[in-house]
């Protein structure tokens, strides 16, 4: 079975631009979460979506937005990019909307802002 897939794997943008990252969850998983991982740190929660509705949001500015599609795939959008947005963006999927089953992560999108 395919795991969580993310695209693109790498991306280079300049300050002020906008970016869209994509994620396909494991087949049968209905929940998708997004995390930002800065080099040397643990992942930081950005969003969770379950059944196409936002279920949680981390401490990130409104420049960050996301959505989930009927097939449970998801997109993360970041507007007005800043140098500090350079990070690995991870998508994780799980079967349910709660927290009692493990999340499974993709290998992320490495975003570099110049």
């Amino acid at each position: 079975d395919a795991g969580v897939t993310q695209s693109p794997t790498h991306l280079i943008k300049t300050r002020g631009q906008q970016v869209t990252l994509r994620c396909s969850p494991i087949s049968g998983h209905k929940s998708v979460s997004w995390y930002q991982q800065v080099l040397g740190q643990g992942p930081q929660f950005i969003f969770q979506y379950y059944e196409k509705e936002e279920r949680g949001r981390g401490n990130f500015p409104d420049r960050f937005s996301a959505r989930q599609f009927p097939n449970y795939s998801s997109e993360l959008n970041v507007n007005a990019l800043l140098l500090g947005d350079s990070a690995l963006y991870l998508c994780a999927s799980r079967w349910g909307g709660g927290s009692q089953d493990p999340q499974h992560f993709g290998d992320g999108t490495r975003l570099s802002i110049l």
Partner: protein
Amino acid sequence: GESVGLHLPTLSVQEGDNSIINCAYSNSASDYFIWYKQESGKGPQFIIDIRSNMDKRQGQRVTVLLNKTVKHLSLQIAATQPGDSAVYFCAESYTNAGKSTFGDGTTLTVKP
């Protein structure tokens, strides 16, 4: 009194030895805990989980211990192998929260 394992940002062990990685969590309401392994250039990989109604859970070569009194979690790896070299993260969450909060990682290096 009890001693709480110290979180170390790096840990170096000899191949074949046992490894113990410690983690302190912050939220007393957390009721679900996971250990992840992250290799260079990859996303975190699920290793083992434990719910708050348990204090020990074993998997293949790994054991997780949970001490809710002092909010401490540990991961024990038996007979550590070079392929175990990676960064290890603990994560906590609570019912219906959806999100997981990750701790500081520990970089495990296994010397042949």
